[in-house]
């Protein structure tokens, strides 16, 4: 069903309100803020072109799927040798031996964002666990939304998230957790 005769109306209604979520998710997936903005812009262009065929249900999930594909395409162009199995987002944790052992994009993001101890604990997580924590706890996605971004079943998101949080809890000092406890109070 086509919702609106004028595509701009559906675009404004379903896409624009999701911009903050799209940006937070993009920040979880990219190195620099400018990369995140580029990724969201790609997503917006793709969404605009496809808005006529969008049925109006679950716009966030629809947009997150578009964002995921846009991100995979960008990674394919940037690192074609790493994307043979499209594992870039699912994150099986396997490291391609041809990958230079240098600071990854997520290393940079985390260093900018988190305090030393929290950063160390998050960095100690495996890639799949770290991505889920960033998407659910930092970007605020639901399990279903995170599953859509990562291209994995919801149950996988749940199990990865629970293991990741348990590890973080075990590694962080009470002083670090108290910061969060204070802000949540």
């Amino acid at each position: 069903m086509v919702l609106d005769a004028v595509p701009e109306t559906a675009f404004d209604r379903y896409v624009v309100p999701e911009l903050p979520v799209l940006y937070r998710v993009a920040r979880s997936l990219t190195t620099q803020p400018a990369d995140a903005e580029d990724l969201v812009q790609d997503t917006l262009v793709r969404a605009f072109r496809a808005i006529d065929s969008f049925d109006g249900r679950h716009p966030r999930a629809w947009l997150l799927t578009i964002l995921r594909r846009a991100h995979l395409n960008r990674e394919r162009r940037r690192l074609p040798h790493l994307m043979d199995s499209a594992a870039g987002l699912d994150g099986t944790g396997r490291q391609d031996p041809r990958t230079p052992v240098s600071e990854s994009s997520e290393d940079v993001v985390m260093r900018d964002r988190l305090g030393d101890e929290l950063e160390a604990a998050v960095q100690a997580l495996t890639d799949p666990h770290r991505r889920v924590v960033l998407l659910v706890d930092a970007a605020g996605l639901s399990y279903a939304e995170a599953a859509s971004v990562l291209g994995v079943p919801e149950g996988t998101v749940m199990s990865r998230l629970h293991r990741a949080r348990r590890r973080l809890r075990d590694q962080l000092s009470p002083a670090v957790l108290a910061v969060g406890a204070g802000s949540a109070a």
Partner: protein
Amino acid sequence: MRSRTWRQRAECWRTARLLQRHLDGELGLLRTAEVGAHLRRCRRCGMEAETYRALRATLLVSRADEAAEEEAVERLGRFAAQLASTGDDGTTDRVGS
């Protein structure tokens, strides 16, 4: 100190299994009420829940500068408005370029 009964231990085990989904608001109403009631009754499980709430809040407060995020979202809003009004994706003048 009185030891926990078998029934209490079973409740704690069930709560531990559902705790993360409870904290993330991913449980239905009935289970949410069940888990919430247990967390109020059981000091041990209640403290566990508080620790995880603090962990999540710590991750949230450690996020990037909110002002920078707001500015980025504003720029993206302008890009979206331009796209919607003209169909021009502005590839010659991209925000992040």
